[in-house]
């Protein structure tokens, strides 16, 4: 009888301690939710990718290249590195013989900001921008010799921003005036990505005529989509540049970029703010949003979840840096003494350890359960 009680007591004790120890998934979930619980993002992604596609060729489609380059600049400014951006430009606008300003692409007639700049990497250019290559990039099914810079190396916790611009219509987008991709193709490619766990969440933005039809066929979870105009509506260009002689940007992308100018890496603006900024009167068409496949409420989704490369960081104990050792790799600048690296400040242990987090209430509940079971066992045992 005593041995039976002892066994039951040991059993309930181990059950209680197991319940009190948070599992690994709970630890990781706590880490992300902690950063989100303070009124910010509830996302649990770890890296960001961007796929920016301009599918039109020829000089008079300069504005489509400016659209894609505007998004490229925004995405780079907010922190996504070149290695995580796949930029596809179907034609060369900056070094085109018709370009009055070589090496530059401007998105406004005042030529305030050069979108091409000095530091740009275009992964697919010219004839390489095809429907086949676009789908191969999304699904990852490529020949082994394709280099890393042309691959979308995303995983199950990547947030991907897919931006497409060009000439399109009812459920199709034209690639280089030669072939087209349909909404079904993109939907199936996203489903392949979901099956292969190649994304955590996708934000799909498209700026073409009748753009909203392009996202009407998606059926995979965690996709948020927005387009510039609905069925039977055209999307219009914004302004012409009289020196270049063509339109330099489209209306929808212009207003999106205007909104993005207020965003920096630490902004808390959400997707709901972006979609509220849409003004059909100014854009001259009705932009649309599709969020039924998206599980989070839009007011909790930050812009930087998709367009930024913001990493979630937890500051731990500081490690003292040994600045006395100057290795032979440190060559002095001409005529100057060897540079001494700055001392890293020792960070205070401001955050609690993850394991103690939120464990207070759970631990009490677990011990309460142990005591209850122990009490019941004891009552049953002593009753007879």
């Amino acid at each position, binding site marked *: 009888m005593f041995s039976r009680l002892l066994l039951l007591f040991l059993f309930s004790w181990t059950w209680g301690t197991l319940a009190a120890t948070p599992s690994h998934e709970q630890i990781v979930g706590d880490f992300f939710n902690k950063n989100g619980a303070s009124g910010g993002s509830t996302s649990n992604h770890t890296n960001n990718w961007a796929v920016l596609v301009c599918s039109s060729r020829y000089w008079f489609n300069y504005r489509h290249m400016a659209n894609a380059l505007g998004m490229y600049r925004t995405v780079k400014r907010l922190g996504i590195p070149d290695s995580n951006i796949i930029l596809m430009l179907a034609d060369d606008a900056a*070094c085109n013989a018709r370009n009055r*300003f070589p090496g530059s692409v401007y998105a406004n007639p005042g030529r305030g900001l050069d979108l091409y700049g000095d530091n*740009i990497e275009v992964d697919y250019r010219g*004839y390489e921008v095809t429907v086949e290559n676009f789908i191969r990039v999304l699904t990852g099914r490529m020949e082994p010799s394709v280099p890393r810079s*042309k691959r979308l190396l995303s995983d199950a916790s990547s947030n991907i921003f897919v931006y497409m611009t060009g000439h399109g219509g009812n459920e199709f987008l034209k690639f280089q005036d*030669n072939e087209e991709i349909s909404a079904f193709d993109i939907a199936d490619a996203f489903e392949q990505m979901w099956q292969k766990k190649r994304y955590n969440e996708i934000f799909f933005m498209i700026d073409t005529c009748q753009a909203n039809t392009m996202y009407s066929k998606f059926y995979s979870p965690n996709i948020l989509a927005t387009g510039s105009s609905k069925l039977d509506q055209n999307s219009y260009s914004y302004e012409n540049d009289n020196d270049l002689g063509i339109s330099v940007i489209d209306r929808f992308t212009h207003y999106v970029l205007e909104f993005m100018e207020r965003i920096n890496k630490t902004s808390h603006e959400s997707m709901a703010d972006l979609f509220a900024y849409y003004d059909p009167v100014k854009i001259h068409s009705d932009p649309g949003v599709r969020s039924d496949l998206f599980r989070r409420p839009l007011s909790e989704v930050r812009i930087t979840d998709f367009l930024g490369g913001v990493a979630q960081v937890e500051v731990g104990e500081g490690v003292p840096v040994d600045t006395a050792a100057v290795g032979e790799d440190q060559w002095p*600048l001409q005529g100057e003494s060897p540079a001494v690296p700055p001392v890293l400040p020792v960070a205070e242990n401001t955050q609690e350890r993850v394991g103690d987090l939120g464990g207070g209430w759970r631990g009490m509940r677990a011990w309460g359960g142990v005591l209850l079971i122990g009490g019941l066992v004891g009552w049953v045992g002593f009753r007879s």
Partner: protein
Amino acid sequence: MRTLRFLWVLGLLPPCYCRYFSGETFSEELVIRPLPDGKVASRFEFTTLLHGATPRNPQNLSVEDHSQHYTLFPLALGQILREYAVTELHLTLNAGKWNYDRWGYPEESDVATGASLWAWMAEGSGSASAANARHRVDARWRDLRNALAGLFCASIASLDEQRTTSPGRAFTPVGALPAWPASVQHAFRHASLPSENVCTENLTPFLKLLPCKSLSGLAHLLNPHRLFDADWHGMGLHVSWRPNEGVQVRLTFQSVSDPLRAGGNSRDWSLRLLFDRVVDRACPVAASSRIIVTLPTKELYSVHPEPSSVVDGRGAFDLSDQSFPLDLRLRWAEPFQHATVPSAEAPLSVRRMLRGSAQDHGALAISITNPDSDPVSVVYLETLPWIVYLYLSTLELSVGGVRRPDLLQDISYIAPVPHGRAATLEAFLSLPARSTVTLHIGVGRSFLRYTEHPPDAQRGWDLPGAVVALLPAASGNQSSATDSTNKGAMQEMKKWNQPQRIYTPALLVDPATPDFSMPYNVIIFTCSLIAFIFGSVFNGLTRRFVVLKSPE
């Protein structure tokens, strides 16, 4: 105490090893040459030498390679070279047409329009087993193209077997090829894409291969907004093996700028005018950093600052002696007089035309002018995509209207395979003194399949430029060239024992394009016809006509 005893050993070490980075040397040079027509040709050269290194033997490709630790040598490039066991590699990305008549020979002789890639790679293992199929030259050539396409953001991956050729004489290795056993012979592959655009995205990775990037040293002058505005610009990557020194990587950037268009109102130029930048500081890891300017010989001029030394009409500015920021300025005292290049100094002049207005046949006409007083031997190399094929029986050589078949000494022709392989024609010609030789060949144009047309089919196809290579071996080529441009080129030629190559511009050939809406038309028409016939037959078989009495 014991450690202090051994401190005296440190005194034996060389006192200053700040420039010696475990066997790598980096040096940079900028050569500026004012041209007779008022423009300015500049050539940047960045050389990294990896001491004692040798190319990888492809027989050892299945064995793991030694680890690569570089300080100055670019790792991205080193990994590509070792992974595909490349002995020598040349890649050029040029835009524009080099005007030999007005500008003479370029400092870097490979000025083919668009992208050109040629490499020497040794054969891998000879057995045909599946594991070694990746080690064959053609598989490594394909993987090398893809890797370089990713590194340089260029569409080099499309230089597939339809554009790859192996010409024998016009291209010879700049460095040495390792003397491996006879079963590991080196194969040569050459491919070019004349329609390739060159823009900032090609310059960005170029700068990332340099140790100082574009932050300090001469690379700071590489401003894409000015370079891609030039009348001609081109970048090059040249990897070769020097037996007594090691593996050398040379990154070059040439351009021909116009001081008038750049904002000045005369041919006076300065670094600020040409590049919109000045040299702020020297690259700390460069073993030597120089600017060499060809100074005018017959006119009054002033150059600021003073050159460190003047050798042979060229002023050398060593950046270790100069003060920063360094803005070089050259001013002429008198207004510009357009000079005509004397015929004794004019280089070989080559013109190539595609004649005929029919869409299925025509003629290729080439005229080569030899201004020298000595005969010259050249190799004429033509690599044509298969859409244009040559009728070799119609090949005619003439000088001044007189047929001269004796000028054609030898010919090598690899016929094209439609939808498969490009044509290679190598003709060994001897050009008499002070004469113009005309080559005339009939060509036919293929009919392309519907899916083989590029997206902008109405533009046509670019034919890569022909190469006229002056062979260095013949004694007739050591002509007395007095101009510094030609002399510099001749010196280059002698130095590397290279054929001096002259490139013609790319030609545009427009094959017959179909009506691309025809598949849609055919489908619609056929479906309508089937529906009409089926509907009529079905109705005829199943519909019964019944006579009804009309109600009174």
